[in-house]
């Protein structure tokens, strides 16, 4: 009773009634329908698959031991590398694009940025499907290639890792371009002029002034691309045809066909760990680099 009284007093002293009313719905929803389900992944991951696809509530590290199997470690590694490669390609394509729009274009600036966003008003699924139309054996790309070079044997791109990369890069390129543009656009041109006046060659001015100042955009864009691509499910499923395994597909399979929820939970926990650790490390390292560079 005493504890309750104290708790009550703590509450009344620290929380305005209005704050409680304003916060309660969000807290209720996020705790019940987000935090509790996420925590339940952890509990499920220590259970075992029952004989008929149900769940046996034991406390076993078996699912995590299974994750150490080179097969699953390989799948995780492939997912991380694929996401990293896609992020880097987005950066290589997106940085010059954003740089051009921010530095050289004044008249068509808004139009160019709008053009980047327009294809993304459609559903992600449809955007991915569109690549099937282009990449499949009887698809647009191969017909075009054969028409141009009659002797060529058209490559089989659909259902290969190449197709998965293309789909991921396509799916997340604007998430790279927009933050890059935002940070490049803010850079004071006078700083670059000053560097040049002091005798720096254009590329030197770029490396020492523009690039460091645009790092926040690089970080934001990379995180925005890396996070969704590492756990991607639709792209590997549709463009990879389920022939190459990525962690997102393997998780989905545990729930849709294999009915091994505990193992799927362990995989999800691993994925969540990779994403959280990746985000934190990336932000930390970038922050450190920036402060030491100044």
């Amino acid at each position, binding site marked *: 009773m005493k504890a309750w009284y104290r708790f009550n007093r703590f509450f009344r002293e620290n929380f*305005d009634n209005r704050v409680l009313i304003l916060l309660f719905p969000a807290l209720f929803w996020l705790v019940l*329908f987000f935090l*509790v389900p996420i925590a339940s992944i952890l509990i499920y991951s220590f259970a075992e698959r029952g004989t008929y696809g149900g769940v046996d509530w034991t406390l076993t590290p078996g699912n995590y031991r299974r994750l150490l199997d080179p097969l699953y470690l390989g799948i995780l590694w492939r997912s991380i590398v694929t996401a990293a490669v896609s992020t880097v390609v987005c950066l290589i*394509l997106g940085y010059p694009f954003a740089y051009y729009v921010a530095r050289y274009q004044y008249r068509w600036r808004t139009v160019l940025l709008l053009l980047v966003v327009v294809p993304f008003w459609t559903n*992600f699924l449809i955007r991915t499907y569109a690549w099937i139309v282009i990449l499949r054996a009887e698809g647009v790309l191969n017909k075009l290639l054969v028409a141009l070079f009659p002797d060529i044997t058209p490559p089989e791109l659909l259902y290969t890792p190449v197709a998965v990369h293309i789909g991921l890069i396509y799916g997340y390129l604007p998430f790279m371009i927009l933050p890059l543009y935002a940070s490049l656009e803010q850079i004071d041109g006078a700083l670059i002029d000053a560097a040049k006046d002091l005798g720096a060659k254009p590329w030197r001015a770029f490396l020492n002034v523009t690039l460091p100042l645009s790092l926040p955009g690089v970080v934001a864009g990379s995180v925005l691309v890396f996070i969704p691509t590492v756990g991607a499910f639709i792209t590997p499923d549709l463009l990879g045809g389920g022939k190459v395994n990525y962690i997102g597909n393997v998780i989905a399979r545990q729930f849709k066909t294999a009915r091994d929820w505990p193992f799927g939970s362990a995989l999800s926990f691993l994925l969540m760990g990779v994403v959280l650790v990746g985000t934190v490390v990336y932000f930390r390292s970038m922050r450190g680099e920036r402060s030491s560079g100044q």
Partner: protein
Amino acid sequence: MIKRVLQLNVILVLAFLYAPVIALVVFSFNAAEHTAVWEGFTFDWYAKLLGNRDLWRACLVSLIVAGFSTFIATVIGTMAALAIERYQFPLRSVFMQVIFLPIIVPDIVMGIALLMFYAQAHIPLGIASIIIAHVAFNISYVTIIVRARLQGFDRSMEEAALDLGANEWRTFRSITLPLIAPGVVGGALLAFTLSIDDFVISFFTAGVGYTTLPVHIYSKLKFGITPEINAISTLLLFNSIALVVLAMRKAVVSGR
């Protein structure tokens, strides 16, 4: 020289972004069913869509889910944004980090977490289960956007209203809400878009007979690629473009 290279890159990027979209639209009018060879212009695939009852039902489910989840998430998210921005309370910074979590956690993890939670809590999968899930991720986006609007807020207007004898609720309704309205509308639009666009979370939380449009399209894709899917996609594409253009017109006319 550098400028030329940059321009070339712009053209390449735009070609990359638009090639699939253009292919989709063109082939939705192609008479050929199985190849990318042009065999004549036809409206057949669109005519076929009109009679597709499953498709219309899926559209309806998507709209209901997006409508309800947008409304609930907008109300809850706006309230949370007001609490964070206006008041100091214990664990405020922790709460702010929790708000960000649904955005960081991969879709697929959120989808399966809810699926297992529903199974344990004996909540049947149906339309409500999808709405609950969509609200859970939309609250975060609405809160962040409304909060951004609140940060640039001049509070002297509110103080003036209070000085002139308006009570707090009245002040909120006639001063605060109209001033943060662009943020609230922006948050709601984003929530609606995310809800309509979501496939992964709906895929895991939808009950039998309550498939949203993306889930419906996915199940069709699994049976093979037909020009009918090109037609649906084209319609959806033009639908979203029309909606965004309309929204922008409105934003320009009202001039903020």
